[in-house]
């Protein structure tokens, strides 16, 4: 009985192997062949630009506040036109867990996740991306949005000239 059981066990396992030989393989020969993930895949983070080509990031610190692993740091500064921007912006990808909370928090749609998952480096310092490494020449997922057009404090256009604003009030007028 023992012998028979052994033979049956060997043949059954061999059968499974033989069946798998004619199936399509699950693995791909990376890096010769690269898989294309879905557009909403969460990998390398980028900083996008507004429809006029300006930096969207206003260095509001919401991404760094949302980041659960504290891999984002930045310094805000004021441009000559009163625009708030990031003097420097750094993401440490050796710490990033690609959770996407930063992109979700971003009020100006500046920070976005891309499907580019090829982020390995031999030197950990190369995984520290500065602003110039993160900026892309594109609007990303919502190309038409321009935060300063709606902010209502007269930075991208003169005060009171936004689409939802009235012209500045004359506070010295006593007319009703």
């Amino acid at each position, binding site marked *: 009985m023992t012998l028979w059981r052994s033979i049956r066990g060997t043949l059954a396992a061999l059968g499974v192997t033989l069946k798998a030989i004619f199936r399509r393989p699950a693995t791909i020969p990376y890096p010769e062949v690269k898989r294309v993930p879905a557009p909403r895949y969460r990998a390398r983070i980028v900083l996008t630009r507004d429809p006029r080509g300006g930096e969207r990031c206003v260095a509001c610190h919401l991404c760094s506040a949302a980041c659960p692993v504290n891999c984002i740091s930045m310094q805000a500064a004021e441009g000559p036109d009163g625009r708030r921007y990031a003097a420097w912006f750094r993401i440490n990808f050796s710490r990033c867990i690609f959770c996407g909370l930063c992109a979700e928090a971003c009020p*100006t749609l500046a920070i976005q996740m891309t499907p580019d998952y090829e982020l390995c480096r031999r030197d950990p310092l190369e995984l520290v991306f500065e602003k110039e490494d993160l900026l892309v020449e594109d609007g990303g997922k919502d190309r038409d949005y321009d935060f300063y057009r709606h*902010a*209502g404090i007269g930075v991208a256009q003169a005060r009171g000239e936004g689409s939802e604003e009235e012209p500045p009030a004359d506070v010295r007028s006593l007319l009703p």
Partner: protein
Amino acid sequence: MPTLTIDEREVSVPAGASVLEAAEALGITVPHFCYHKALGAVGACRLCAVEIQAGPQHGLRMACLVEARDGMVVSTTAPAATGMRRAVIEYLMLNHPHDCPVCDEGGECQLQDMTVAGGHGVRRYRGKKRTFPNQELGPFVEQEMNRCIQCYRCVRTYRDYAGGHDFGVLGVRQRVAYGRFRPGRLESPYSGNLVDVCPTGVFTDKTVRFRARVWDMQCAPSVCPHCSLGCATWPWARYRELLRVSGREGPRTNGFFLCDRGRFGSGHANHPDRPRTPRLDGRELGWPEALEALRERLTKLTWAHGPGAVGLLTSGRASLESARALGLLGQALGGAPVVCEPHPRRDRAVRALVAELGQLGRDQEDVRQSDCLLLAGLDPEGEAPMLALAARQAVRRGARAAVWDPRPDRLPFPARRIARLPEALLEALARPDGRAPDGLEAAERESYAETRAALQAAERPVLLGGADLLGPRGVRLLLAAARALSRPGRACGLSLALPGPDSFGGALLCPDGPDADELLAGIEAGRVRALVCLEADPLSEHPDPARVAAALGRLELLVVLDHLPTASAARAHAVLPTTAAAEMDGAFVNHAGRLQGFARVYSAGLPIRVTGQGAHPPREFRPDTPGELPQPGWAVLAALAGEPVELGELRAELARSEPRLAGLAGLVAGGPGVQLALEPSARERPDTPAEPGVAEGELALLSVEALFGSEPLSARAAPVAGVASEDALALCPADAARLGLGEGEPARLRSALGEAVLPVRLAPGLAPGFALVQRRFGGPLEGFAPGGGPIACRIEKGGAR
């Protein structure tokens, strides 16, 4: 004590309290914008709606405006109340811009908090938003008027609380705006409070515009180091840089507010030339080598020439623990005495106060609650700005105020004024009969008699003075006057502005040491061969800089421990970097004898703005922090004495050895502090001789402190350096005419303090016979150390500037 029920819980509150305050006593926060503890209620924002279900009133009411009464039943969660609050938030948000990501208030914005808490998310109204033009309000305050919710807090602070005149409310209907009539710098020395009181981002701190978010900053309860009042502060730091200071609630001291010097003067901790590495004979060393070499040299000098060969000098800037550690170094060197102030007259004035004050010291809260004030020889704007604000609150409540001072009146409240030096008047006040001194004009005699009568009749009188003008004799006279005006059961208090944040504590630790002149004499005679200066700058603070310079040149070893790039540090053989107040734990004793602790906000180091040169931080791995070497003064001194200690041990030792400082053992930063149990010294009070006055016909020069630029810490802060007033020589118009000088004309000023050519400024409020200069670091008046009282001077037309 009415008892009422709020949200089914009973509470008893003092009569006159509002329902909002009663709810707060229960720990229930009724949302509000316009109500502020210090400013009271006006009912402008309509947010604090509650439903009153039983009692004298019924229905939906504003909690801040309804007085709590017996038997009231209040609900803060009734549907009518929450519905009203939701509607109010929605109305307020109709016009509010959509700019929280670029607003500096974000994260500490009451409007943001309330909007999120109330669940408002979508603007249903489709109409357009109202906008306003902005105003340029000077270097400290940034305005973004579109964010305004018309709560009137700013006007109530600026005009009502602080007595400013150049800021107000304009417009009608929904065009109500707050600002100046014309753009320009806000003139009030308390303008920075707009930043703190604004519940949204209309007024933000321009000096740190876009520099950091509140949640990214480090902060800890601290005590303001810019004058002797010891106001409660929150310093905020990020990336090893002290960015800003905001007011902390100090019930006994500042209340809620701060002066602009305290608020914007913190940049000294980021000074680019600040010593950050121990330096000996021009070489930079690590701590162990520097301390070893210095200890050896100091010990050798002591062996060779006796314990008096090393002089020890501190100042009111050093913390209590550091001053104590200097004393311990003196003991380790065989008994070298400590000199506690580089200015001998200031030193004697402070020691006179500490010896005799007893329980007469009065904090700002006592001044606010006072019903009769006398300001003798005090110019609060320069010496203790918040004291003027405290006095103003007393006057607003109906207190009478009198000023005896020859300087122009810059007080934010009305006061009866005698434009004379206060000494003779105080002497008269201290006499039992109180007869007016000779030489007064009829109106002045009447004013004096009225003030004296008011002080005697008052329930809570307080005498305010400035140590700088009064000097030791004046301080003793002020103390004598306070005692003479006290009756059993009702003391006349005293509040004296001192030179530094810990002048009181320093004098407490060395009641009878030598003064700076004796130290200089020792150096000149060759007895003292080495000098250790703890956060003291004799070259800028002593009234005779030339003599100090010569004396320092004779020293074999000058050791300076400081966190400022002072003139003395530049000449020192050894510079040991210490930490600024925000970078260490410590304690100060304020002008009224209140011991207050402060906590470390951040660790000293080169700011990332410096290491990254404005761009991103350097891309490198290193185990240490650049510029981390500065150590607290006490730690350096203890190591120098060869006995390193922990702060707790040092405090325990101090509490043991000085019973009046027993409260130090359990001191917590952020608490109300401990009023020291002071007893007036039992020793015979020495009769201080009158100072050599100024001869008849000669002008008396007063060198005083200004709001900005005079005080050594804030004078080195970048935002403040640009706003210090121009150097000028103030003369009363009659004196100027006699000298043939007109407004703006150059005049040559010669005095014992030094010589300078300055433009003349006509000051109609200045008493005849006086010339007034304000010391300013970095200008021709740097050597004109305040604290010297009136001295003789000669003024002539003239000279190229």
